[in-house]
């Protein structure tokens, strides 16, 4: 499928100028019922101050909000008006494999001029989204999807807004990919400098400053490599609006507002808060969780979080989403009128990875954990079993003793004084849908070679790999060990990922699970979806570079 991504991207290098003129920012229209018609085409947009061309669904970026009802049999016709193959994948939906929209696995993609008809029965409810399963995702081909529950009463809320966070670049996605291949730090302008060293030497003494760097420099790892692509090229968008054109949702004092956050960044984790309001997280990846109150949460590409905020005052509140690498932010506004601006907090200073992000559990044992960390001790897993293919050229780091604790909000959010959501806070309301204990384990390591921008499972890229075979209806445990220094949002198609607590109990049902650097996570899967599926990192350029496996349930 990646080749098609390329074809897509290549075409984007030479945009035709005939794109239809549609306003860049529109409140997405809502399409509901059991029959939905979508058209994929080009629109002219201007997010950066420069006109550019995006790929839109029904003329808008993001595409229309699709509202479905649990239990309905739906028909979604997607017409491709582009001059290249495209696709739509329904992210997190449980459906037949040939309706999943992954070119090369589910089907051959939607050819130019062709209409593909998706037909499936909606088996779930909650907040989801859809996007291209090609590099065109970077060019705007994504939109929100809300599924109403069949029986349960809807959650009491006075207002209900979808907040879709994404990243935009005027560069063609293939160009971004090639830039990263040729120079992996291409977009990182926060690399440690002589000035930083001098300032550390002032604070820590010369030997302190040297030892702070020794570990990273010896290993040739960059402690500021949090995000491959930064605001150096990205403009961050909230519901298709950059900060300058702030998206506004009406919200009055005393109202309970449901905000459905969707992480639609292609290479961006967002750290989200609404200064002045407590956020009660009520659903993760569309699934209800036991409510938890937080000031802030991190949302990765692919994830969704529903939160409830009770508006304290008749004033404007900023919905503030800063990129994990702290190079930029986007904000929207909740206010009683649509002409009010909100106070925007400053972007947090950028931070280095901590030693636990390279050393995992061993850093904790050696007393290298972040001092004064208010989020739990580092727990260490048994020695990880590396694949023999992790000793080759594609793997620049292996973690022998990964950390297993889930109560770490992640780099940049540690000890910031705010109550930040961690995976340890997320608990599915009620028991596991499948109460069986896993019958077997599959251990996979997330690997990379940062210098060469090669990403893989077990050091083996997609096109060198063999698929993972699941036996129908087996309950299995997938163990992921992150042998890299980046956070990877891992998304298994077709089946739920039931995240386990560090002590091996079912904790929360998700479809996209972020694995932090040098961390081990385990999740349970019930192989109840026959056919072929994708399992990959939802950072688009990692997926393209090979961090992708095919799964066969047969």
């Amino acid at each position: 499928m990646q080749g098609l991504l390329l074809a897509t991207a290549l075409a984007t290098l030479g945009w035709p100028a005939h794109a239809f003129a549609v306003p860049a920012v529109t409140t997405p229209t809502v399409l509901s019922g059991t029959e939905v018609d979508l058209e994929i085409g080009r629109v002219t947009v201007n997010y950066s101050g420069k006109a550019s061309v995006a790929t839109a669904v029904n003329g808008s970026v993001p595409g229309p909000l699709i509202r479905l009802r649990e239990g309905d049999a739906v028909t979604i016709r997607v017409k491709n008006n582009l001059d290249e193959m495209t696709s739509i994948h329904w992210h997190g939906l449980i459906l037949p494999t040939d309706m999943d929209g992954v070119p090369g696995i589910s089907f051959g993609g939607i050819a130019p001029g062709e209409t593909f008809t998706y037909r499936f029965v909606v088996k779930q409810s909650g907040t989801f989204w859809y996007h291209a399963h090609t590099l065109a995702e970077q060019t705007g081909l994504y939109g929100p999807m809300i599924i109403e529950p069949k029986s349960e009463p809807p959650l009491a809320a006075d207002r209900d807004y979808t907040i879709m966070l994404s990243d935009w670049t005027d560069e063609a996605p293939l160009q971004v990919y090639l830039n990263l291949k040729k120079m992996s730090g291409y977009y990182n302008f926060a690399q440690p400098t002589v000035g930083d060293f001098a300032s550390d030497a002032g604070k820590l003494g010369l030997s302190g400053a040297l030892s702070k760097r020794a570990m990273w420099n010896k290993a040739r790892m960059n402690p500021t490599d949090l995000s491959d692509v930064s605001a150096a090229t990205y403009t961050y968008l909230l519901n298709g609006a950059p900060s300058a054109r702030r998206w506004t949702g009406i919200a009055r004092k005393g109202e309970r507002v449901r905000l459905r956050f969707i992480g639609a960044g292609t290479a961006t984790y967002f750290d989200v808060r609404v200064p002045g309001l407590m956020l009660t997280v009520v659903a993760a990846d569309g699934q209800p969780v036991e409510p938890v109150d937080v000031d802030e949460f991190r949302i990765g590409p692919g994830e969704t979080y529903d939160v409830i905020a009770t508006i304290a005052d008749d004033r404007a509140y900023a919905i503030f989403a800063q990129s994990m690498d702290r190079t930029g932010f986007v904000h929207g506004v909740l206010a009683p009128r649509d002409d009010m601006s909100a106070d925007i907090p400053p972007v947090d200073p950028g931070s280095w990875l901590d030693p636990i992000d390279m050393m995992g559990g061993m850093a904790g044992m050696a007393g290298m954990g972040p001092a004064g960390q208010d989020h739990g001790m580092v727990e260490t897993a048994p020695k990880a079993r590396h694949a023999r293919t992790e000793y080759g050229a594609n793997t620049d780091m292996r973690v022998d003793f990964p950390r297993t604790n889930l109560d770490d909000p992640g780099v940049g959010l540690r000890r910031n004084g705010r109550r930040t959501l961690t995976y340890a806070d997320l608990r599915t309301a009620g028991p596991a849908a499948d109460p069986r204990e896993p019958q077997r384990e599959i251990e996979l390591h997330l690997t990379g070679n940062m210098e060469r921008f090669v990403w893989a499972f077990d050091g083996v890229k997609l096109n060198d790999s063999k698929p993972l075979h699941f036996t129908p209806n087996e309950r299995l445990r997938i163990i992921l060990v992150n042998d890299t220094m980046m956070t990877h949002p891992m998304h298994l198609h077709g089946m739920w990922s039931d995240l386990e607590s560090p002590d091996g109990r079912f904790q929360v049902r998700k479809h996209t699970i972020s694995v932090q650097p040098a961390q081990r996570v385990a999740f349970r899967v019930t192989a109840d979806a026959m056919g072929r599926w994708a399992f990959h990192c939802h950072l688009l350029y990692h997926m393209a570079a090979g961090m992708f496996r095919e799964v066969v349930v047969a």
Partner: protein
Amino acid sequence: MTTSRATWLLALTGLAMTTVAGPALSQQVKPAVNAEAAGSNDQAMSPDMPMGDQQKDGSSAPPMNMPGMDMSGGKPGADARDPDAYSDGYRNSTLPGYEMADKISVAKVLVDELEFLTNKQGQGISWSGRITNGPDNDKLLLRSQGLKQSGERLDPESSVEAFWWHGQRPFWGTILGVRQDIGPGAHRWIAGGIEGLAPYWFDVQLTGYVGDDGRLAARLKASYDVLLTNRLILVPQLESNAYSKAAPERGLGGGLSNLELGLRMRYEIRRKVAPYVGFVWERSFGETADFRRLAGENPTERRFVAGLRIWW
């Protein structure tokens, strides 16, 4: 004299080869945490301590095998997983569209140095660049470098090289190919060596050559990027060449021929476009120095340079 030169040369080439082939690399990486950073002196190992054996049995106790010590490369232990163990004989889909962004050939042209120089004798130009094309771990690599000063012959190190570059290890690649000298007395050479990133981010190139008449040569280049800011970058650089026997027509003596130390400061207007200024000190040794004196040139040169670094 000749014997000691040859020994020196062999030692250098030998170093190149062991570095490529052996566990030397993983040893370098292993002590990724020094004692201070780990805060536990008694557990830290001497950085020079050989690790190969401990690694093989895969059972060395954690306290001895400090965190992240063998972080890359090395040999898998007997208990290493089979990456295909979960496939049960299945193969990936063959539907149309299932193609190969992870196998993409990436073509990169880097004009690392394209500069005007000035010294006591006059002016000149100098270049150093490389072109690579291929997928992640196997590339065609073309390298060229050269120097021409007014009133002097083309610098004897001026050459064009073509290699197969293989990403042998996470931070190191092997190169195998040919070199063609440019200018009078040019030789053709079979060439092999390594290129890579040493711990602490040193860029290193080490190449050994066998000439068309059996003569040997070696070239070492190393550089380091000092980030004054994320755009203003100071690059100390070193180059040294050695030959097994003299080539009077190129003004080259046997043995260690020259040492060049450069300091260039570039400003990345964009990542791909960076003008720079710099200073280069070069010293010729032994017979090469004699040849230079005979030609009325100074064995020691100081050059101011200004140029442009671009890539795409």
